[in-house]
């Protein structure tokens, strides 16, 4: 790992759990404040001030939850797979921990996207579940998350578990575009000309600006929860080392 020094210095510093613990400790409050401000501000803006949809009325406002959670579910998978690749190539412990920490957050984002999609579907389509291409892809993404989490918890040895989940996450990453394409194609084959939820022909600025705020807020929230989980994981795995003992003694 250390003999090929063509990556920037911070990359190698990230490999040290101790350094990672300290830097996330410093970043955490900033992201927490940003997440709180953006999410509260964005929700108030979205629910109270953004105009109602001319077709769907107020029920469309659930997209302010649905879209950010769907975007986050996909980003979290990307992050997980990239962390897995880094862990496999550079044998970096912290990357293994990021993979393990990101999976449950991504999975819960996928659940949130599915739940809000179902709630939205009831007034729009008249049923809780419709085999819409986007919802189906999200369901499969959720299954992929479950697979990674199940494999990670089934293997007892921590580093083996991390490497195996990394391989699975990478295989999933290759498959995601294929799955997305095949499901969309299947959907047009079976349900031509259904009413598409998120592909608005033109969303006015007053509508998408609060959405943008919410998306950024969700990213900040994701960063906060990821760092929290990562710090827990670091403390747990490094519990026998001197610096963690010192830290625990101080408290």
């Amino acid at each position, binding site marked *: 790992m250390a003999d090929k020094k063509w990556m920037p210095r911070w990359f190698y510093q990230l490999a040290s759990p101790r350094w990672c613990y300290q830097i996330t400790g410093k970043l955490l409050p900033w992201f927490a404040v940003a997440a709180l401000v953006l999410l509260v501000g964005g929700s108030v803006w979205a629910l109270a001030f953004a105009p109602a949809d001319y077709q769907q009325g107020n029920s469309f406002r659930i997209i302010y939850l649905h879209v950010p959670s769907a975007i986050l579910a996909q980003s979290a998978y990307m992050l997980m797979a990239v962390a897995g690749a880094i862990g496999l190539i550079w044998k970096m412990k912290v990357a293994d921990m990021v993979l393990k920490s990101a999976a449950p957050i991504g999975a819960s984002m996928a659940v949130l996207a599915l739940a809000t999609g179902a709630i939205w579907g009831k007034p729009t389509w008249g049923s809780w579940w419709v085999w819409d291409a986007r919802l189906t892809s999200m369901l499969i993404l959720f299954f992929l998350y479950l697979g990674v989490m199940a494999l990670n918890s089934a293997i007892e040895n921590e580093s083996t578990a991390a490497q195996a989940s990394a*391989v699975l996450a990478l295989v999933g990453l290759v498959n995601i575009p294929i799955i997305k394409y095949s499901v969309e194609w299947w959907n047009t084959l079976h349900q031509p000309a259904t009413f598409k939820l998120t592909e608005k022909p033109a969303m006015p600025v007053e509508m998408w600006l609060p959405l943008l705020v919410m998306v950024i807020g969700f990213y900040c929230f994701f960063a906060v929860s990821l760092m929290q989980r990562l710090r827990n994981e670091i403390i747990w795995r490094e519990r026998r080392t001197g610096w963690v003992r010192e830290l625990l003694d101080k408290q």
Partner: protein
Amino acid sequence: MNMHTNPRQQASEGMAGLFMATCRREFLLSFRRKSDLVNPLIFFLMVATLFPLGVSPESGFLAQLAPGVVWVAALLATLLSMDALFRSDYEDGSLEQLLLSPQPLFVVALAKVIAHWMMTGLALTLMAPLLGVMLFLPAEGMPGLMLSLLLGTPTLSLIGAIGAALTVGLKKGGVLISLLVLPLYIPVLIFGSSAVQATVTGLPLGGYLALLGALLALALALAPLAISAALRISISS
């Protein structure tokens, strides 16, 4: 490092020899343990029998269902047979010996998967018309059914082998492997059953087969690498 003792030609001959030796060994193993060979086929037949019993024996209705049912049954039968792919090698220690061979691991992995496919996927493909008849699939659909299975089942075997390699060190890998692999099977299922439907309705088949072929090419290129990485990881614990 000096490694000029072995000309490249000699190495590639060694690889081809290993590939053939592995295939021969796998065939021998399955023919001596016939249950491994026959069980997935019986399972395939039984799953297809459940649908008329569970839904309706009405011929028009079943004919509509047939492409999907045959494909889902073939997919599950392949999945069922996947767990045994590396398990017996793991248990008797031959997998360790395989990993310590100087020959590239992906050659052996690929040989094992291909031999496995010939004994499950190919057999399922040959048996599929029988199920088609049972489910009143129109005769025009048969070529589509067989061709799509012929191109689709190797992909299923390749992807399934990744799951088998990841779970080989675990005592209860059977359920876990389906959890890992089933979501990855979805594109093959979609294109495969659509191909059958297209031939039933008289639409051209070429596009679907091209898509299935593209998936197979991708799986052939990438899966052996993932399988060998997964085997090394599973053994190292």
